[in-house]
């Protein structure tokens, strides 16, 4: 096995997100996006990590400037919509509606000894269905084929948020 450090400093990202919770800057968070999907399916290329958070302060900016300045003080760099840690881009996205429910119902995991939470596959599918880009449809297909899906939960989420699965 390669001794080279991983190009994805995910443990550092999760540790930083945990610090944001401890510091009271965010209420809760979960790993979403492609990296969350990879937890359940075969690995594929992705170039960033999405941290979806529930803001402590639910004003318009949802505490994003505070999060940015906190992480910048820890050595993170800002590049357009991303924060960079060890040159790896991370996006912090404020949760609302479906994504907020996805964070609250996220699965607790441990990654390299760091406790974290990750979106459940049913929520990843529902969010992908709500976004509907080509890559989201591919993600839905992959999850339905490779992950264990709670159909009752998925149907319930889709019904409550008035979503439909695309024809694959």
């Amino acid at each position, binding site marked *: 096995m390669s001794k080279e450090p991983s190009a994805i400093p995910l443990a550092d990202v999760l540790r930083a997100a945990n610090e944001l919770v401890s510091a009271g800057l965010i209420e809760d968070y979960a790993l979403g996006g492609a*990296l969350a999907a990879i937890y359940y399916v075969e690995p594929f290329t992705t170039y960033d990590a999405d941290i979806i958070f529930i803001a402590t302060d639910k004003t318009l900016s949802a505490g994003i400037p505070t999060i940015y300045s906190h992480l910048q003080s820890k050595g993170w760099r800002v590049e357009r919509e991303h924060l960079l840690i060890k040159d790896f881009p991370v996006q912090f996205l404020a949760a609302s509606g479906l994504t907020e429910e996805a964070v609250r119902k996220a699965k607790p995991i441990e990654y390299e000894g760091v406790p974290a939470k990750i979106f459940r596959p049913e929520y990843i599918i529902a969010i992908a269905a709500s976004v509907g880009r080509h890559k989201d449809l591919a993600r839905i297909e992959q999850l339905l084929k490779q992950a264990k899906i709670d159909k009752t939960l998925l149907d319930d989420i889709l019904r409550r948020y008035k979503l439909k699965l695309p024809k694959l």
Partner: protein
Amino acid sequence: MKPEMRHQLAQLSFEEKIRKVGELIRLSRKVKAQRVRQDVPNYPRSAFRNPK
């Protein structure tokens, strides 16, 4: 890739999967860099020394 192989990869630990994604990123960067090098045309050096 065969579906059975995809299923096997899906069963790997999350840590192992993230390492593999890291390898994919490195590989795609390497390929991109090689393509950029190949795309640079071989102009004669004099063309740069004496621009018109």
